[in-house]
């Protein structure tokens, strides 16, 4: 399979003092795929993602994002990625439209482009009546859908989603994944961390992190086959059974 590699990590390690948060992880993500980054709380998912986004400098190892080196070209990386943080990442005291305008603005979208984009986004999300309401007054599911749309407002090559569906009901989660699929269809590579195993099934390939290591990396089907399991839950239990770290 000859595919363009958009994320490549090689022996990527982050240490905080004696604590090794991510230990020599090596993987590749292909253009256009939905890559699930799974693991229990404290397994090192967020740390790994922060290194890939340029929020955190690796202790050792190499990584390139969209072909750019994480050490040398962080500015070029920033132009090619979108990011949605674990904490809800919009301004609650700004309206829906103002949030879109702001994030579009800092990503350098042209006024005309931004105007059209704002209108389009508000319509696709069905927020026409809420466009001028403060984001803080919206239900959490809508906020998260909006946050995702804002994270890809500049049509990045890759979008990093850090546990995007925390605290959301299954129906909203399903709708959220529809947005992810739509973005993926447009060619945006999705890198998503989660600890919901049902979401893992939605991914093209997943990696399982346990105690800072990547313990498994394959498509959900292959992983289930390899572990003789019928669900991803079983696969996860199989892999995470020996975990030393508990929680965050």
């Amino acid at each position, binding site marked *: 399979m000859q595919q363009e590699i958009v994320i490549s990590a090689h022996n990527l390690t982050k240490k905080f003092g004696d604590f090794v948060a991510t230990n020599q992880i090596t993987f590749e993500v292909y253009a256009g795929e939905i890559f699930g980054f799974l693991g229990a709380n404290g397994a090192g998912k967020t740390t790994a993602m922060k290194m890939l986004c340029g929020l*955190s400098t690796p202790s050792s190892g190499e990584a390139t994002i969209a072909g750019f080196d994480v050490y040398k070209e962080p500015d070029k990386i920033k132009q090619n990625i979108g990011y949605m943080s674990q904490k809800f*990442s919009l301004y609650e005291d700004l309206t829906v439209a103002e949030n879109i305008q702001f994030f579009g603005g800092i990503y350098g979208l042209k006024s005309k482009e931004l105007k059209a984009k704002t209108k389009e986004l508000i319509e696709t999300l069905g927020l026409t009546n809420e466009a001028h309401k403060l984001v803080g007054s919206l239900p959490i599911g809508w906020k998260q859908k909006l946050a995702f749309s804002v994270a890809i407002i500049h049509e990045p090559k890759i979008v990093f989603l850090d546990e995007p569906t925390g605290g959301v009901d299954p129906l909203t989660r399903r709708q959220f994944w529809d947005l992810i699929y739509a973005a993926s269809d447009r060619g945006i590579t999705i890198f998503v961390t989660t600890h919901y195993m049902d979401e893992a099934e939605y991914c093209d390939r997943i990696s399982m992190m346990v105690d800072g290591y990547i313990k498994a990396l394959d498509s959900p089907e292959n992983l289930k086959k390899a572990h003789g399991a019928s669900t991803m839950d079983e696969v996860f239990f199989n892999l995470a059974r020996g975990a030393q770290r508990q929680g965050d």
Partner: protein
Amino acid sequence: MKQFTAFVRKEFYHVFRDPKTLLLLFGMPIAQIILFGFALTNEIKNSKIVVVNYAQDEEARQLINKIEASANFEVAEQLMNHREIEDAFKAGIIKLAIVFPNKFSQTLHHEGQAQIQIIADASDPNTATTLSNYAQAIIRDYQSSLIPAETKALSINTQVRMIYNPELKGVYNFVPGVMALVLLLVGVLMTSVSIVREKEMGTMEVLLVSPFNPLLVIISKAVPYFFLSLINLTIILVLSSTLMEMPINGSLFLLYFASAILIITALSLGLLISNSTDSQQAAMLISLLVMLMPTLLFTGFLFPLENMPWPLQLVANILPSKWYYIIVKSVMIKGLGWASVWKEILILMGMTAFLLTLSVKKFKIRLA
């Protein structure tokens, strides 16, 4: 540039949509000016006194009239006996008593001198000193009016002129102090809290992942608060010159220039504080601790720095507010120009440059 304006607009939304921020921003200067201008003053007006007049003669009566006519005193009662004085003090009505001895005029004219006793309640030493000074000044004044112009006797007359503040008004001290306090407090609080809020909300991560230059994050945060602080300064100046007759004798431009430097100092300090904490409450607390006490104690507007032991004077010297205070007083009251305050301006600029570099450096480190 487009990015920058988008960011600045967002900052203004934050300010104008948060009643607490607005109250802090514009309520504080007004409250401070009114507090310090009207309520907290070291001038003593209409202090109640008692007079024991054993003399009951012309000179004593004239002098009592003069005392009563002054804005500082109000004769509450004329007592017949000095034994009643202590009761009056104990009752807490009066702060000062004046006793005229028997045959006051007679002694004065025949012997060339006479005595008046002033008794002050020194349980509050400052008030006691101030009040007895007021009384002595009135008596001295009266005495000089008694001496005929052609008198040949040798005498040295002191001629006291209180220049720059002839009425010895307290606001001349307080307004510059309040300016320093408000500019520092508002600047430090606003910046630190607004940056820490982004961290708390998780939006800081998103900003740092975006191609928006981190340095621009700082500048875009600073710009709105810089202008709001200038508006604040204008409010203080307008209030103090209309309500309190505070003069602005020197160049307004120089005044705003010095204030702009102080505001930048405050913004850098706020940035510095925001680096050391992740919660808004902590940021607020640190800002108050770091700013409020030292500014109140060591700026010189509440307690004269000259009387402090040298270690404390040293502390005062490293505080920007002290230098700003000197500049503002010189410019507003004495009407001095650049030539007289360039040294203080340079010191203030040096401190600001140092703090700004330090805070920007620190901010960058956090990104790694």
